[in-house]
């Protein structure tokens, strides 16, 4: 008799999800799915609100990356007002996003994922977390927490609060950077750099040793990659234009404008998940699967533009080739981006224009619709608003980074499941905990934020279900 194994909740990710493994009558794996089981409805209840409130409202989608929504909303608002924001505001928004990416990547690497690498896949779940890491390696855990604090503190210095600071607004930003804030950033930068170096020194030997197999089976497949690049093809996280490449390095589309997203992105819907499945429209849902996020950004760019980050990018490419197709490399990509952010922050705070006092322009509604884009820590984020004559929202479409990785996450789960369940599973057989954890870890590569991507609530539990061919639930194991 066939059955389905459900992992519910998936742990150490942001949001609620479950994984189901489908076995046929002989106990052989036929499919694996990553289900997102929450719904929030932001796109609907934003209707009727003034577009000027969208930054404040959409930032509330997420407590981890409110900045991403804030920036996308502010950029969309700039376009609705038809204004070009002052150069200082542009640089301050970039500084905000760099700090945001830095803190979010530190959270993903140190708090959520590193317990798997540093404490081991087989480590008991009760210890395989940040507290276990604190007990095993307090210095590294402290350094990771302080690196996240560095990013978070910059957000507070700029916006007045760490979470949900409504500082970026249509037309620019509210307050310029203070001397005290600049001094604090400069003082803490050396420590942040030292932590990034420590993390790379600890992680890279693991890639050469115990984590080699994971690099081969955690989402190792060809796909497209999408991300923003600067005018000369350099790494970018807020301005620039979209580039889409194939895994052989071919640039399929370049200089894509976010305004035209509907012409190149389409979204499929499956009844078993609240998370939609975006794909590259010209190639269809199968061949059009693309990935976004740190790995995609590093794949689509020619270079980063700062010395240490470029050296680390070269190391990543030396390990995997010019286009990195293993999703396990997202972890290393996050560390490379932390380095890139720290170097870019250092360059920015040394820029005298950053403290220019003119940081906002005012305007009035100039058009009835606009699309804003920013690179969230997890990938490219689109906000599309349509407004009436008075600036009240009539339609909202949010395309979130995690959603764009949905096809790839499902494929990753299937790939790992095939690897760890090579043969038939006997009826009623117990599912080993290490298997549960590896499937979850496959999802963690993408650092998904499901609360963002479905516009949904809560924290993430994990359930593993075994379902038969007739749809009957045969076995279940849950955690969280």
């Amino acid at each position, binding site marked *: 008799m066939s059955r389905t194994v459900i992992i519910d909740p998936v742990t150490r990710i942001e949001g609620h999800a479950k994984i189901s493994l489908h076995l046929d009558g002989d106990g052989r794996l036929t499919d694996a799915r990553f289900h997102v089981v929450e719904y929030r409805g932001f796109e609907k209840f934003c209707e*009727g*609100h*003034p577009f*000027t*409130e969208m*930054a*404040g*409202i959409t*930032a*509330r989608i997420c407590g981890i990356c409110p900045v991403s929504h804030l920036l996308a909303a502010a950029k969309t608002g700039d376009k609705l007002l038809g204004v070009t924001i002052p150069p200082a505001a542009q640089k301050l928004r970039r500084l905000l996003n760099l700090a945001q990416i830095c803190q979010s990547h530190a959270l993903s690497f140190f708090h959520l994922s590193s317990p798997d690498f540093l404490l081991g896949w087989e480590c008991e779940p009760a210890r395989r977390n940040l507290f276990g890491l604190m007990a095993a390696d307090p210095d590294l855990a402290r350094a990771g927490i302080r690196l996240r604090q560095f990013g978070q503190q910059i957000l507070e210095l700029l916006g007045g609060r760490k979470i*949900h600071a*409504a500082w970026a*607004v*249509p*037309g620019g930003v*509210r307050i310029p950077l203070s001397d005290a804030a600049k001094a604090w950033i400069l003082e803490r930068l050396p420590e942040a750099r030292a932590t990034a170096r420590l993390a790379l020194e600890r992680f890279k030997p693991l890639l050469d040793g115990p984590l080699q197999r994971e690099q081969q089976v955690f989402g190792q497949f060809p796909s497209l990659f999408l991300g923003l690049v600067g005018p000369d093809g350099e790494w970018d996280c807020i301005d620039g234009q979209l580039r889409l490449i194939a895994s052989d390095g071919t640039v399929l589309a370049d200089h894509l404008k976010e305004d035209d997203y509907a012409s190149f992105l389409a979204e499929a819907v499956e009844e078993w998940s609240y998370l939609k499945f975006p794909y590259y429209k010209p190639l269809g849902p199968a061949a059009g699967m693309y990935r976004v996020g740190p790995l995609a950004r590093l794949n689509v760019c020619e270079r980063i533009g700062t010395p240490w980050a470029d050296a680390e990018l070269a190391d990543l490419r030396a390990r995997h080739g010019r286009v990195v197709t293993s999703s396990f490399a997202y972890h290393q990509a996050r560390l490379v981006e932390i380095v890139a952010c720290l170097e870019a922050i250092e360059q920015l705070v040394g820029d005298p224009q950053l403290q220019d006092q003119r940081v906002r322009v*005012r*305007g*009035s509604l100039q058009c009835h619709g606009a699309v804003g884009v920013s690179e969230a820590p997890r990938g490219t984020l689109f906000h599309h608003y349509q407004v009436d004559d*008075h*600036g*009240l929202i009539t339609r909202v479409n949010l395309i979130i980074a995690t959603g764009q990785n949905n096809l790839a996450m499902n494929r990753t789960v299937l790939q790992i499941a095939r690897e760890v369940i090579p043969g038939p599973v006997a009826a009623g057989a117990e599912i080993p905990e290490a298997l549960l954890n590896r499937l979850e870890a496959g999802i963690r590569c993408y650092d998904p934020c499901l609360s963002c991507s479905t516009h949904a609530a809560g924290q993430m539990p994990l359930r593993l279900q075994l379902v038969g061919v007739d749809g009957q639930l045969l076995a279940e194991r849950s955690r969280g």
Partner: protein
Amino acid sequence: MAALTLRIDGQAVAVPAGSSLLAATRLAGLALPVLCHLDGLTPVGACRLCLVAIEGQSKLQPACTSEALEGQVVATNTAELRELRRMAVELFFAEGNHVCAYCVASGACELQAMAVTLGMDHSRFPYQYPLRDVDASHPLFSLDANRCILCSRCVRVCAELEGAHVWDIAGRGRHCRLVAGLDQPWGEVDACTSCGQCVEACPTGALFHKDDSTAEKHPHPIRALQLRRVHDLPPRPDP
């Protein structure tokens, strides 16, 4: 001017004849919460936050619309009054859609400040989630009816100070709502002089400047001083 004396919370107070109990309480140096009252406008007793107990009267009275009388004995800070005031604020929150998280007035909202002052940490009444609109038809300002508490300060400031009488309250009971002109979009009301006094008088984020976003509404500096004077009165000890 003739003076009269009365006792408020056990304290003897001398006030000019014709003073309201609210004015008398403030002259005594005692704080009394208000939301619908604005110095310079006709009091209407709409918010019921300044209710006081007058000895010899079975019903509680709003201090803003009650005249101080010779020999009165008034209590303004009993446990019952504090409970009723908190309940009134809970009802304001329950009957509208007050979401401080992205509200333009967050941090400068009198309703929000009142909830904190009165110790409201939740509403005992179920939220009504009424379907209300935003009127953004005016070129400079907007009305978000979700945040309106029907204090009528905008109605009075427009009628009494500006002389335009753009605003009024329509409907009955829970169907009461603020309307512009003859229940028109605000931007179509010819009488509006765009002076912005209604925006300044609004205690919440219901009326706001169009290009202000979350937490950007701040009272005019003079109004801010007025508010500070009222809110800076010494805290009241429990009787």
